[in-house]
């Protein structure tokens, strides 16, 4: 099938939401480096944060093939309004309960999205989806194992996790804000769409939360926190970008 201009715009939007999510959450999670609850977890969480930034690079490279700027420019030279990331990923790391729940919600979304893209008609994206399968599987195993342990652990730990699970349900649903190009994406075989992704995700995380002994959010009554995919962000994104690009902006033309 020949791609029209709208198909390409849809594909770019899809790639930007994926890569921006990964870059921003990768940066946020890296803020735990040196502060993790124990050494082993500090190393694991930091390593996964690096994985996410690596995954975002692979997606920015596809965008470059589609005529966008080179990855460094795209990552470091845009203001908050140009980012397609959802609001959940830009929030400060908070306490570990929030960071773990966000990791659990986000990485299952990432795993399902990548799985849906393993047979996409866009060949480079297909290759990326297949390449990172093992990496993302490990990330979800890490998240699941913590959720399971904390669900069966002390009353205080369980209560904090339960609170974070319920309080952040709306932010999580914000990941699935519809694109303006849903029809183009699905009719062309690029991507089956945010709605399909959301259904599978709700099924997956609900079943897991239940098996870990947590109360599942009542998804139908949760108000999704939208806006991020259209460039509306919280006040927390711009300071993150300023910090992330501090060194880059000293000399944007420098060779690293």
């Amino acid at each position, binding site marked *: 099938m020949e791609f029209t201009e709208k198909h390409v715009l849809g594909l770019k939007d899809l790639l930007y939401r994926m890569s921006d999510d990964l870059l921003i959450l990768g940066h946020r999670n890296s803020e735990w480096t040196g*502060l993790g609850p124990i050494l082993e977890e500090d*190393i*694991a969480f930091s390593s996964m944060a690096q994985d996410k930034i690596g995954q975002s690079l692979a997606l920015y490279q596809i965008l470059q093939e589609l005529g966008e700027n080179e990855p460094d420019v795209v990552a470091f030279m845009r203001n908050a309004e140009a980012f397609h990331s959802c609001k959940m990923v830009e929030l400060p790391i908070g306490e570990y309960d929030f960071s773990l729940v966000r990791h659990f919600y986000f990485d299952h979304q990432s795993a399902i999205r990548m799985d849906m893209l393993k047979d996409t008609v866009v060949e480079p994206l297909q290759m990326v989806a297949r390449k990172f399968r093992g990496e993302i599987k490990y990330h979800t*195993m890490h998240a699941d194992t913590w959720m399971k*342990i904390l669900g069966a652990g002390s009353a205080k730990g369980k209560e904090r996790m339960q609170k974070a699970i319920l309080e952040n349900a709306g932010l999580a649903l914000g990941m699935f804000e519809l694109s303006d190009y849903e029809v183009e994406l699905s009719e062309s075989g690029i991507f089956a769409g945010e709605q399909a992704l959301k259904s599978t995700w709700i099924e997956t995380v609900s079943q897991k939360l239940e098996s870990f002994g947590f109360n599942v959010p009542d998804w139908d009554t949760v108000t999704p926190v939208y806006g991020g995919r259209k460039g509306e962000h919280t006040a927390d994104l711009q300071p993150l970008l300023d910090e992330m690009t501090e060194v880059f902006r000293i000399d944007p033309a420098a060779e690293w």
Partner: protein
Amino acid sequence: MKIKSLDPRITRAKIDENTQEGVLNPMDHFQTYEVFEQKKRGTHHCHVGSVHAPSAEMAIIFAKEQYTRRGQCVNLWVVKTSDVMVTEYLDSDIFETTETKSYRDPNSYKVMDRIKAFKERQTEL
């Protein structure tokens, strides 16, 4: 007063200078697990180190990051350190062998004669 550090991560954490929270007593740590890594299917697992973890499942997750990030691995074992039975260094004399036991060394096996004979034939040719 909050701790101010040149490291922005520390400052960002807004830790009170006199905090008692998160201070670990010596016995508050997780238990340790010993990690064994298999580099290729069919080869044996080798001990590579240990990790602190709240459960065996979590120990596997940590071991993957600590020990297999660089280089090949196909399988991991973890075992609670407390489940490993160890000898005393005081008893290390049990491992000493005496000269009179040289018949136990592989070079005493009959096959060595055949190998030597084979090598001699090779040099003759």
